[in-house]
């Protein structure tokens, strides 16, 4: 594929949710509760970009798609950008910087807030250690260990979404189809990494002791 087409794909998928939101707002297609539309759809875009980011490595195992591997960083940073927008909309636009109201919401230990905040902080740490200079200073081993936390962020963000969704996702009541579609995709992506790691280890162990195998 041509380079420009790849660049378009790489950034286009990330800009699409924002463009669609602006288009819907322009055409008057948002609901009568537009702040909720904005908050939910930017949150969903963050989770979607996170899933895209997590899919880059497994897809790149297939040789013709090797070039996909660095896209995980691009898409991961877009995920964080949507998460920043999402939190800004919640705190600044929805709550209008009313810290007393927000504090009330958090103080009363609504788990969805804590989970959302935890996922956001993990993504912030990953974004901060994303520049090559910082990564080099951190050292490859530590960087890798830290960035495995992206799976924690994805799981926690998913849980956050499941608690905030209409109905009860865990009792399969209400509007839960989407929540579970996200859950299955994220779990499958994690399973792919764990599965391959296990398989490589097993193969390495077999090769290391050929006498037994023979």
């Amino acid at each position, binding site marked *: 594929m041509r380079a420009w087409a790849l660049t378009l794909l790489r950034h286009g998928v990330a800009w699409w949710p924002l463009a669609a*939101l602006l288009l819907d*707002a322009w055409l008057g297609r948002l*609901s*009568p509760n537009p702040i909720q*539309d904005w908050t939910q759809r930017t949150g969903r875009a963050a989770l979607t970009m996170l899933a895209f980011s997590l899919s880059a490595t497994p897809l790149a195992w297939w040789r013709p798609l090797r070039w996909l591997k660095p896209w995980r960083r691009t898409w991961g940073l877009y995920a964080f950008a949507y998460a920043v927008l999402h939190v800004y909309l919640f705190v600044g*636009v*929805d709550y209008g910087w009313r810290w007393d*109201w927000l504090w009330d919401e958090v103080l*009363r230990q609504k788990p969805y807030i804590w989970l959302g905040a935890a996922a956001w902080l993990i993504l912030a740490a990953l974004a901060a250690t994303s520049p090559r200079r910082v990564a080099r200073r951190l050292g490859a081993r530590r960087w890798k260990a830290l960035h495995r936390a992206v799976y924690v962020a994805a799981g926690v963000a998913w849980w956050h979404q499941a608690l905030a969704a209409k109905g009860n996702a865990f009792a399969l009541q209400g509007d839960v189809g989407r929540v579970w579609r996200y859950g299955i995709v994220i779990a499958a992506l994690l399973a792919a990494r764990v599965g391959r790691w296990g398989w490589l280890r097993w193969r390495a162990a077999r090769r290391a002791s050929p006498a037994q195998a023979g």
Partner: protein
Amino acid sequence: MSRFRYPQPPPSEITPEHVYLSRRDWLKAVGLAVGTAALAACAPRALKPASTAPAEPVPHDELGDPATPYDIVTSYNNYYEFSTDKRAVADRAQGFPTDPWTIEITGLVHEPLTLGLEDLLKRFPQEERIYRLRCVEGWSAVIPWQGVPLATLLKAAQPKAEARFVRFVAVYDPEHMPGQRNYQTFPWPYTEGLRLDEAMHDLTFMATGLYGKPLPVQNGAPLRLVVPWKYGFKSIKAVVRIELVAEQPATLWNTVAPNEYGFYANVNPQVDHPRWSQATERRLGEPGRRPTLMFNGYEEQVAALYAGMDLEKHY
């Protein structure tokens, strides 16, 4: 118990529908305002309300808040019988048959009644009430209803002395209500309940119309309960049976998720939903949030019903 006189505007003060900003214009204005606020994150400013000031006065509730535009009230509906998507309900509700419609008032009464909707409209004078509606999900609206106080209907049937509760049953029509086919985990039909003194309260209302028009299907046509000091899910739609009973009846949401939705479900900013706070709400058509009022602002009228009760326990 003190009688509450509800302030009613004369019909001449109800703004004709065409005066309101059209839904599309309004949504565009507010949707873009949110977007602008979102994208101007580097220069945070309080979100300014979009210019929605109509040319003529709109009806207001007794606290001075304007009624929510008709187009919003009729396009943002929680009605799982049609869809869990509030914006899909109005479309899917089109063509739902509400004529003929029969309503029964039965159970522990001396004079069981079976009324066609026209009989009901002929026999009982219609009143107008402008009520706040607070959804348990955290949004709210102000709606001008027409209808009959529930107490008027109940008195016509003459409740027996042993009647303690009122049970409401909505229509069961899976052929026309896709939700009753698709959401099998819900015990259809929708049922609700009130204590008899709550049901007899002046504020408790059976609505047959809104904004001076017959009730649209998505708002509960042809007849729905409106209990303005309780979360919206108590205000059951498309009622076919009102039954006086001795024991507290099972209700749909209380059966499905008893830890989240109580039998009383009084609007209360101090008592949270287990998954979110109820301290604030978003009024449809307004940017930002406002504090939620005790009993949805009807504390003066209804607090006496719950004197001595632990509202944390009886949520």
